[in-house]
């Protein structure tokens, strides 16, 4: 945190040596080609993690995920990316376990942000975490057959391990998977199943362990607790999210988030895809900010390509970086107006503030459409640049000035947008909302997440910064051309809903500030290439791992990709994991909601700003 003395940045190699001196043989450097960090003996994992947190300042667990090395050592590996909230590079800690009896001690007592991520690893990989208090499936339902992210688990429509499938390329013959399935559906049942097994057990599970006894006493009257089930179909859960809430009167006692209603197997599909095929899928993670999702994935794969020194590949040109920043900061603006508009929706100001927000969003979306061809799913960035330079003219149905002028010079359009329209909009929105009495009374002091708890729970983005932690990946672990740009990291003080609102308002102002620095440089670099190379083949000859993280509007978005060496494997990711801010920010939801009223849950959830495409992936 900022009030601590600045620590001397320690490189990962130094840190590995320090750990080895302290723990001896328990800690081994990961010496596989292009891999980094340390492999820790799983019996000592908790000790090492505690030491990392307490003695070396690695207080922030960014990502925890499992990799199945079937055929490459036949073990599971948990990969933890640990950071310091004072900034600096990652320390990657790994722990391995045999595949048949897969257990790794839970790190929930060291970093409570491991909670959902370990449950996900249990659900999708089948690794057990002794010490985890609530180890059950999180994305799939209880009773589902198998652990789908294991390499030897095949889905019902399975054709081949890797794309492009032989029968499609080069002959172009199309196989319809449902014709080969006896049910004509995307279903697969375990062999030896009997019809006696057919009963719905998935629902009971959510109500088990909830204290429903008669122990609330108001004078002479005994009352029961009340369970309220919100979602998955509920207008204020921002998608298909569900919460099982236990109430004492109207006060929240426990809250359990139930997710997976939009789990569309992003990672499994991603591991079948070739590298570039995942780019359009990343659009559909956080579908409000597709451009910045592209950016994170491009960074991860570019980093891996640099490690492998791919022939013909060179880093993005200056203009490509400028266009990326332009797109990403506009996305941040779009996301924040959208989230504030819908926060007000949750507060009861039905749709009017959102309408103001959507009006500005449409204007930015027109620019995205002109540049990429699609309003929402832009699929714009490529490894080493962007898909295309921004167009000369915008001929969309822009309503920037009036309804008649529909043909603009792009730079003129952007200038009006960046220097006039968006700053004016912020001031208008600010005037309407920030000192609004209703907003103040409903938001101040509601859903408080203290700073230390936010760090422990791996909260990211505006949620973390509103709690007073000045941690922004753009500054803490800089990427792209952010070091050259001037902007402030906005923080709050109280960590309540109102501070999250203020942080978003502040970040929109900073985005405009960044855009105003990028715009003149865009004009200067006009005509320069957006790609540094003519052609390259993304084949990661020697394999390796890479973690690309960006400061997405919703928080830190990370992509962990692993490639295996060899001609059969290097065209596709062996492991493709998304560290989704919307997912991990929900870890603190119960803490934030406890003691508040039912109506506040909706507001608190709105202030976390989740998108289910990313939460469930």
């Amino acid at each position, binding site marked *: 945190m900022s009030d601590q003395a600045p620590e001397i940045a320690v490189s990962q190699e130094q840190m590995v040596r320090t750990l080895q001196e302290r723990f001896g043989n328990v800690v081994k450097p990961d010496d596989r080609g292009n891999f980094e960090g340390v492999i820790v003996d799983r019996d000592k994992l908790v000790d090492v993690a505690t030491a990392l947190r307490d003695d070396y300042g690695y207080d922030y667990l960014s990502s925890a995920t499992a990799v199945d090395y079937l055929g490459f050592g036949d073990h599971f590996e948990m990969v933890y990316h640990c950071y310091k909230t004072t900034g600096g590079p990652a320390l990657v800690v790994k722990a391995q376990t045999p595949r048949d009896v897969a257990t790794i001690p839970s790190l929930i007592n060291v970093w409570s942000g491991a909670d959902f991520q370990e449950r996900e690893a249990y659900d999708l990989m089948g690794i057990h975490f002794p010490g985890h208090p609530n180890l059950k499936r999180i*994305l*799939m*339902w209880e*009773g*589902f*057959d198998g652990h*789908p992210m294991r390499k030897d688990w095949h*889905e*019902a*429509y*399975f054709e081949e391990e890797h794309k492009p499938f032989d029968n499609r390329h080069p002959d172009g013959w199309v196989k319809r*998977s*449902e014709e080969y399935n*006896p*049910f004509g*559906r*995307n*279903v*697969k*049942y*375990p*062999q*030896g*199943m009997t*019809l006696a*097994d*057919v*009963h*719905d*057990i*998935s629902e009971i599970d959510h109500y088990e362990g909830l204290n429903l006894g008669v122990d609330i006493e108001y004078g002479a009257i005994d009352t029961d607790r009340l369970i309220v089930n919100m979602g*998955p*179909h509920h*207008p204020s859960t921002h*998608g*298909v999210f569900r919460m099982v809430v236990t109430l004492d009167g109207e006060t929240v006692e426990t809250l359990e988030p139930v997710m*997976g*209603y*939009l*789990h*569309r*197997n*992003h990672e*499994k*599909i991603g591991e*079948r895809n070739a590298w570039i095929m995942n780019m*359009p899928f990343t659009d*559909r993670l956080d*579908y409000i900010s597709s451009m910045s999702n592209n950016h994170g994935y491009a960074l991860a794969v570019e980093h891996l390509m640099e490690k492998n020194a791919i022939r013909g590949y060179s880093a993005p040109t200056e203009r490509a970086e400028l266009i990326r920043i332009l797109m990403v900061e506009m996305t941040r603006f779009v996301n924040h107006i959208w989230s504030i508009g819908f926060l007000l929706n949750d507060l009861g100001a039905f749709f009017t503030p*959102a*309408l103001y927000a*959507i*009006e500005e*969003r*449409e204007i930015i979306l027109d620019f995205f459409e002109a540049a990429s061809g699609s*309003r*929402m*799913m832009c699929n714009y960035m490529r490894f080493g640049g962007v898909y295309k330079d921004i167009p000369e003219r915008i001929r969309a149905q822009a309503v920037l000035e009036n309804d008649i002028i529909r043909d603009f010079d792009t730079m003129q359009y952007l200038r009006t947008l960046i220097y006039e329209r968006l700053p004016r909009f912020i001031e208008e929105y600010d005037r309407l909302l920030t000192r609004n009495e209703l907003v103040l009374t409903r938001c101040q002091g509601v859903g408080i997440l203290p700073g230390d708890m936010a760090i422990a729970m791996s909260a990211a983005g505006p949620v973390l910064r509103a709690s007073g932690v000045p941690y922004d990946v753009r500054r803490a672990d800089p990427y792209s051309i952010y070091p050259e740009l001037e902007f402030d990291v906005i923080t709050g003080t109280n960590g309540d809903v109102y501070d999250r609102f203020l942080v978003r308002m502040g970040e929109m102002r900073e985005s405009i500030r960044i855009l105003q620095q990028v715009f003149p440089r865009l004009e200067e670099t006009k005509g320069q290439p957006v790609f540094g190379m003519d052609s390259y083949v993304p084949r990661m000859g020697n394999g390796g791992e890479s973690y690309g993280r960006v400061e997405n509007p919703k928080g830190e978005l990370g992509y962990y990709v692993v490639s295996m060496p060899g001609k059969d494997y290097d065209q596709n990711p062996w492991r493709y994991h998304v560290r989704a801010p919307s997912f991990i920010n929900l870890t603190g939801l119960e803490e934030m909601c406890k003691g508040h009223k039912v109506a506040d849950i909706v507001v608190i959830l709105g202030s976390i700003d989740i998108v*289910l*495409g990313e939460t469930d992936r």
Partner: protein
Amino acid sequence: MTTGKDHIDLRELHNSEIPLPDGLQNNVALTTLSQLYNWGRARSTWPLLFGLACCAIEMIATAAARYDLSRFGMEVMRASPRQADLLIVSGTVTKKMVVPIVRIFNQMPEPRYALAMGACASGGGPFKEGYNVVSGIDKFIPVDVYVPGCPPTPQALLYGLITLHRKMESSSLNNINSVPWYGRGPSDEIPLPILGPDIIDPRQTEILRKEIESFNASMQEMQAEA
């Protein structure tokens, strides 16, 4: 549909097969009960306030000022299925989510319509091969209109809704097959899928039983050979 003027264009409602004197054009409409009934229904179709995934964002954009769904009398999105006429399935249908969707559809009163918005709801879309994805909501509930796109633009959704209006207008009270909800008894409920080892559609249990039997038979054969 209203014109730009501030009154209803009666020519739209008038049955063109019945001749009208010139002076009465647009002042009088002679029409059938079916036509009047469908005209009212189509112009106040209330969709369910129900978003699934990315397409829901475009659905909200369609309802907002720029595309203005209220031009079609559809801006009243109801949060309760009991008050809704139209289910817009806006996004990827997962196996976990299809159970609530079928339940919601069962709760909607007749006449009810379903619109599959986007590639995922129509046929699985880019996520079709996923282990938790239902390849199209039409495997479980009857769909009236499919809108292609990933996601469909607001214009495409509007076109889909206009197509649905046409479909509503084509039903006739004379023909009981086109208005089944006036038949005897309640309409059939769609059986709820079960989340077992994989999703089980109760309508498919016969196939499932046969599959299990043939598997058991093959196991017995193998044992006999051994």
